[in-house]
């Protein structure tokens, strides 16, 4: 089956006066239609940068996609014209941001914000677009008559529903959900996720679900990729990764979760911090924090190793997994 999204060797840099931030480093990732891929990692791992890159929305002059390719449904996103990009954004690929409080324009009514998107992409009349906006609001559980209301008149959870309605208004093929529930209360989180799950299943939308919560990944995703310092260090199905996490970093993430089934006395946080993205180590990026670090980890950057369809970027698997290969 053709992939909906294929990213190869992506490199994204941010430049400031003196420093260069290596936000995404030789990242490979792909996504099949109708699948939900969970992307986990700490704050600063480059998750949002990756999502913005998919929309070719890295803003010059500070940010630049330096290398690699991103293809969406077979088309090269990075070589699209401005016009093609605008047609793709919002229509084929939609994005939900982390903070619903700031994601909506305070001076436009929520109906207007949805309707203008529909108007732009679907070739409808103004009335039809508004009708669609009201339908979308209804779908996410907001009464149609509230479409004339402004964002400040909604609560946080309601705003995120509006954002979801906005993102799904044009039936996108791919949804980039960037920590869609992080800013919400726990009870509201569950409601919003339920809603998203239903809508996604009904539409057959592929989703890149960005989060730092493994719990949410387990509940919502088909596949999972662990991101660390701008690269994917482990990739597999939910069963593979949650069954046996291979990469020491992923294991660390699991270790720092409370587990009710085991009588663990203390959580085991991963020692240290993410490496400074302006000065990444020459070898494995995780080596300074890795409990299993070896000599080779300092010297050589690991390649993807295929362990039965389960990819891991770690020297520990050099012997077992056969030749290193690219995903």
């Amino acid at each position: 089956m053709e992939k909906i999204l294929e990213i190869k060797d992506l490199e994204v840099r941010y430049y400031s006066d003196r420093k260069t931030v290596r936000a995404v480093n030789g990242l490979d990732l792909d996504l099949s239609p109708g699948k939900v891929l969970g992307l986990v990692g700490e704050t600063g791992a480059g998750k949002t940068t990756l999502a913005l890159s998919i929309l070719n929305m890295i803003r010059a002059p500070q940010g630049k996609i330096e290398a690699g390719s991103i293809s969406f449904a077979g088309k090269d996103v990075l070589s699209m014209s401005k016009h093609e990009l605008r047609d793709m954004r919002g229509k084929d690929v939609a994005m939900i941001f982390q903070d619903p409080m700031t994601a909506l324009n305070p001076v436009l009514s929520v109906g207007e914000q949805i309707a203008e998107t529909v108007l732009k992409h679907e070739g409808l009349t103004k009335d039809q677009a508004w009708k669609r906006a009201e339908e979308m609001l209804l779908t996410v559980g907001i009464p149609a008559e509230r479409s004339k209301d402004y964002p400040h008149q909604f609560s946080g959870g309601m705003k995120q529903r509006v954002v979801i309605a906005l993102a799904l208004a044009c039936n996108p093929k791919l949804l980039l959900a960037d920590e869609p529930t992080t800013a919400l209360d726990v009870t509201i989180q569950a409601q919003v996720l339920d809603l998203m799950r239903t809508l996604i299943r009904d539409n057959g939308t592929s989703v890149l679900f960005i989060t730092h919560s493994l719990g949410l990944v387990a509940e919502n995703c088909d596949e999972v990729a662990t991101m660390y310092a701008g690269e994917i260090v482990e990739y597999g199905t939910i069963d593979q990764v949650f069954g046996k996490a291979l990469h020491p970093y992923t294991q660390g993430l699991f270790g720092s979760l409370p587990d009710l089934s085991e009588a663990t006395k203390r959580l085991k946080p991963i020692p240290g911090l993410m490496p400074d993205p302006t000065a990444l180590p020459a070898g494995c990026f995780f080596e300074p924090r890795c409990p299993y670090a070896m000599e080779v980890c300092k010297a050589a950057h690991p390649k993807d190793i295929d362990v039965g369809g389960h990819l891991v970027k770690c020297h520990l698997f050099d012997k077992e997994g056969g030749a290193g290969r690219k995903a």
Partner: protein
Amino acid sequence: MSKYLLRRIFMLVPVLFGVTLIVFGLLYITPSDPAQMMLGPNATPAAYTQMKADMGLDKPFVVQYIRFLFGYQHPIFGYKGLLFGDLGRSYISNRNVFELILSSFPNTLILAAGALFLALVIGVPIGILSATRHYSAWDMVFTVFALLGASMPVFWAAMVLIYTFANNLRIFPAMSNPRDFMSLVLPIVTLSMYSMAIIMRMTRSSMLDVMEQDYIRTARVKGMDEKVVIFKHALRNALIPVVTVAGLQFGQLLGGAVLTEKIFSYPGLGSIMVDAIYQKDTPQILGSVCFIALTFTIINLLVDILYGFIDPRIKSTFGRKKAKPAAARSRA
């Protein structure tokens, strides 16, 4: 909304009361002697005392102030008081103080409105251009111009314009009056320079601020054209602090027209006030300053109301305390 308005109008009362007290107090301590002025240098002491009593200047401050507000009965120097819109006659021209103010105020209004209009029409688009082409050569050029405009003394700018366009190029006259459009050009340009600079810088910084906001990213992610992003999504938000600044500028323009009017010999309220100050014409000074302060305060109130119309967050919370957008406070 109407409750809020009533409250705001009610709050004006103590402020205006304070303004009259300050202005009256200032003139009370002025070392001028209107009685002496009326009589000339050769008056007898008896005539002088009589004149002082007639003018009501022999009474203590409080009495004089109350008379100033509520009126003073006297066949020659009597008046109905500030609260009834009557401050009697000018010591110099013998015309009714408020009549003179009301006949000259429209002239000042023409200048101030023209200047604000020019400042907005040029300042806002340039501000937008500067912000969207952040750090480009144009941005630099406009920023330098804005700084020059904000630093230039108004009276000097007026003199340079007169020297260039009136004396040498002979395009516009050096003297201005409200009935001749050509003669209004130079004073309006002079008066608008400072406001234009302020509005331009405010628009620019406010735009820059807004363009960094998440909802602008949302609009781009939705596939909106850059034009729509700038003019629909960003501008409406960015204009909120600009409206405040423009309103405040309008008040300052009414007051600041003094220098411009004086230089262009323009028959506005500012000229009348400065002449009254030169001639120590107390009723005229009192009337003019109070009138300008009242206008200024009312304009500020109108700005607040207008504010509600462009910012839905305020419209619905009218009556509660409002938070000014961050951009209005910083990077002015």
